[in-house]
C-alpha cells in the first residue's frame, strides 16, 4: 500500500495545473494575436493545436524525421494552413462585419476538423516524449520531464513574442495596425499583410502547443474544440488582447481545474473553471487585466 502526504498531493495538483495551464495559455495567446490585429475571435485556434500535434506525429513518428527538424516542418505546414485560411476565407470577406468573420472562423474549424478526420482517422495518436519518459520525484510528487518541456516552451514563446512586438519594426507595425488601422495605413504600413501575418503567427503558437502536449495526452482529430474553448476562457479571463493576462489566466484555469479535481471532485472540474470565468466577467467585464477604456473602443 502506498500513501502520499497531503503536501505532496498539493504539489502534484500544482504541477498538473501548471502543465495543462501552459497549454491553455498558449491557446489564449493565439486568440490574442489575431484579436489584436483584426478584432476577430478565431474559433479555429483549437484546430491549430490539433493540427500541430497530428502533423508532428506524422513527421516524427511516421516519417522518422529527427525531432527538431520535424518540429520546424510542422510549424511550417501549420503556418501555411493558417495563412491559407486567412487568404481564402477571411480576406475575401474583408468588408463583412466582425461577427460574420467569426462565423467564418467557425466554418474553418469544422472544415479543418473534418479534413483531419479524413487524413488521420479517428484514433488517438501517440508521440514519444522529447526526453526521458520516466517521471522523477519532486518533494513527493511525480513530475513528467515533458511537463518541463511544456512549461519551458510556453515561457520561450512568451519571451519571443514580447521581443517581437516590443523590439522589432515589424512587431511594432503590427501593434500600430491593431491600434489604428487607418493611421497605420497612412504611415505606409501594409495592414493587409499584418492581418495575414497575425494568422500565421497564431497558427504557429497553436502548433507549438499541440506539439508539446501530444506526448503527455495523445492527440486526435476532435481535441481542438475543447482546447480552444478552455483557451478562449483564459483569453477572456485575462482580458482579450493582453498577452501576460492570457498567460496568467491560462495558468489560473489549469490550476483551478487541477485543484478542484483533487480536492473537491473531478466531476465539477470543468464547472469550476466556468464559474470563476463567469464571476470575473460579472465583476470585471474587461477581464482581470484588460482596461475598461480599451474595451469600449473594441467592436467585440
Amino acid at each position: 500500500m502506498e500513501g502520499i502526504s497531503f503536501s505532496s498531493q498539493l504539489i502534484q495538483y500544482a504541477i498538473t495545473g501548471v502543465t495543462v495551464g501552459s497549454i491553455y495559455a498558449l491557446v489564449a495567446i493565439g486568440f490574442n494575436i489575431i484579436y489584436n490585429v483584426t478584432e476577430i475571435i478565431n474559433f479555429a485556434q483549437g484546430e491549430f493545436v490539433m493540427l500541430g500535434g497530428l502533423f508532428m506525429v506524422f513527421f516524427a513518428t511516421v516519417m522518422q524525421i529527427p525531432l527538431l527538424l520535424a518540429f520546424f516542418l510542422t510549424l511550417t505546414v501549420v503556418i501555411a494552413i493558417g495563412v491559407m485560411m486567412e487568404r481564402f476565407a477571411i480576406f475575401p470577406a474583408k468588408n463583412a462585419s466582425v461577427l460574420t468573420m467569426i462565423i467564418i472562423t467557425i466554418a474553418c474549424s469544422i472544415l479543418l476538423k473534418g479534413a483531419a478526420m479524413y487524413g488521420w482517422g479517428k484514433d488517438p495518436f501517440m508521440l514519444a516524449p522529447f526526453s526521458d519518459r520516466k517521471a522523477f520525484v519532486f518533494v513527493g510528487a511525480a513530475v513528467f520531464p515533458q511537463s518541463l518541456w511544456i512549461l519551458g516552451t510556453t515561457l520561450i514563446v512568451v519571451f519571443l513574442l514580447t521581443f517581437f512586438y516590443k523590439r522589432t519594426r515589424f512587431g511594432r507595425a503590427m501593434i500600430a495596425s491593431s491600434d489604428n488601422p487607418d493611421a497605420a495605413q497612412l504611415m505606409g504600413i501594409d495592414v493587409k499583410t499584418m492581418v495575414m501575418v497575425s494568422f500565421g503567427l497564431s497558427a504557429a503558437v497553436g502548433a507549438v502547443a499541440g506539439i508539446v502536449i501530444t506526448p503527455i495526452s495523445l492527440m486526435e482529430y476532435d481535441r481542438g474544440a475543447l482546447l480552444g474553448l478552455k483557451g478562449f476562457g483564459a483569453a477572456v479571463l485575462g482580458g482579450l488582447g493582453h498577452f501576460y493576462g492570457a498567460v496568467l489566466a491560462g495558468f489560473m484555469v489549469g490550476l483551478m481545474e487541477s485543484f478542484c479535481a483533487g480536492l473537491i471532485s473531478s466531476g465539477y472540474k470543468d464547472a469550476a473553471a466556468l464559474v470563476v470565468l463567469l464571476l470575473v466577467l460579472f465583476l470585471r467585464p474587461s477581464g482581470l487585466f484588460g482596461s475598461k477604456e480599451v474595451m469600449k473602443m473594441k467592436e467585440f
Partner: protein
Amino acid sequence: MNKRKNSLVIALWVGIFVFLSAALTFSYAKKAEAKEPYKVGAIFSVTGRASFLGEPEKKTAEMIAERINAAGGINDHPLELIVYDDEGDATKCNVAMKKLINQDKVAVVIGPSTSGTSLAIVSVAERAKIPMISCAASKNIVMPVEKRHWVFKVAGSDIHVSQRIFAHMKSKGITKVAIMTGTTGFGASGREELLAFASQFGISIVADERYGPKDSDLTAQLTKIRGTGAQAIVNWSIGPTQVLAVKNWRALGMNNLPLYQSHGFGSHKNIELCGKDAEGVLCPLARVNIGRLLPDSHVQKEVVMKYTDAYEKKYKEPISSFGGHAWDSINVAVKALETVGPDRAKIRDFIEQLTGFVGQHGVFNFSATDHNGLSKDDLEMVVVKNGDWALAD
C-alpha cells in the same frame, strides 16, 4: 413447292413450340431455384461518432450474409441483408427502423450499435411487434423485460463486467477500491454498476473520480486516489482517456496498485498506444477478443477462431468485440429463420427459448426473464503481458 411450304410451316410451329416449352421450363426451374428471400434488417452506426462500432459490425454482417448465400441460403431462401447507417443519431436510427418495418418488411432487425440509439427504438419495435436484436451494452435495452417483449441484445452488460472485475478482486483479497469513470454515457453507466455491486462482493469504494472524455491529464485524480489507501483502481472509459489513465498511473509509480480497465480497453490499439506502460493492466474481455489464447477444449474456441480467421483474411484488419456482436446477432436471427421461417412472432418466441447457443461473446441462454442470455462467466480476465493479451490468473 407446296410440299416445301408445308414443311416450312411445320418446322416453324415446332420451333415455336420448342422455344416456348424451353422458356417455360427454364422459368419454372428458375422459380424453383430462387425462393422468396428472407429479409433481415440491420441498423449500424457505420459513420459518425460511433463508427468504430458500426464499421466492423457492418463488415461482419455482410461477410456472414455472403457466406450463407454462397452456401445456398437459409433452407434454399436467399438471405437479403438490408443495412442502414444511423450515423450514431437517434432520429436517423428511428427513421431507419420505420423504413425497415414498413417499407422493406423485414422479418427481424439486428442492431443498432449504441445504447443511445437502441433505447431510442425499443418502443418502435414493441409497437410494430418486430423482433430486434441490439448490439449495444446498456441493460435498459432489455430491462424491464415485461416492457421489452420483442427486444433482445447480444452485447454483454456493464453488470457482468463490473461483477467480473469485483469477483477477480475478491479472489485476490482486495477490499478497498478506487474507481475512475469518464463522464460519457459509457463511463456513467459503468460507474452506476460498480457502485451498485461493490457491497455484494464485500468491496468498499474509497474514491469515486470522474473526468471528461477529452481531458488531457488524469494525474490529479490518481494523486487523490493515492491518498485514500485504495488497494486497486478501476478505470472505466473509452477513447484516449483510458490510455492516459495507464500512462499517468505508471508515471506516478503506482505499480503496486493493480489497475483494472473496463471491457472498453479491449482493443490491441490501446496496448500499442500505451507501449510498455500497459504491462500488468487487467481487463475483462469477451472471448471473441482472445480466441488464440483459449484452450482447444473450450466450447467457443472453434467458433471464435473461424470468425477471426475469416474476418482478418477478408478485411486485413484485426477483429473487434463489436464485429463479434454483429456475428452473434445475425447468427441468432439466421438460426431463428432456419427453424421457424420469416414469421415475426415465431422468431421472437424462438429466440426467447434459445439456449446453449455458442457465439462470439459467450454461450447464450435466453429466457423469458433474460433477453441477454449472458453472464459474468462469459468474460475472461485478461492481463497485458509482453505487449499482448494473456489470461490472468
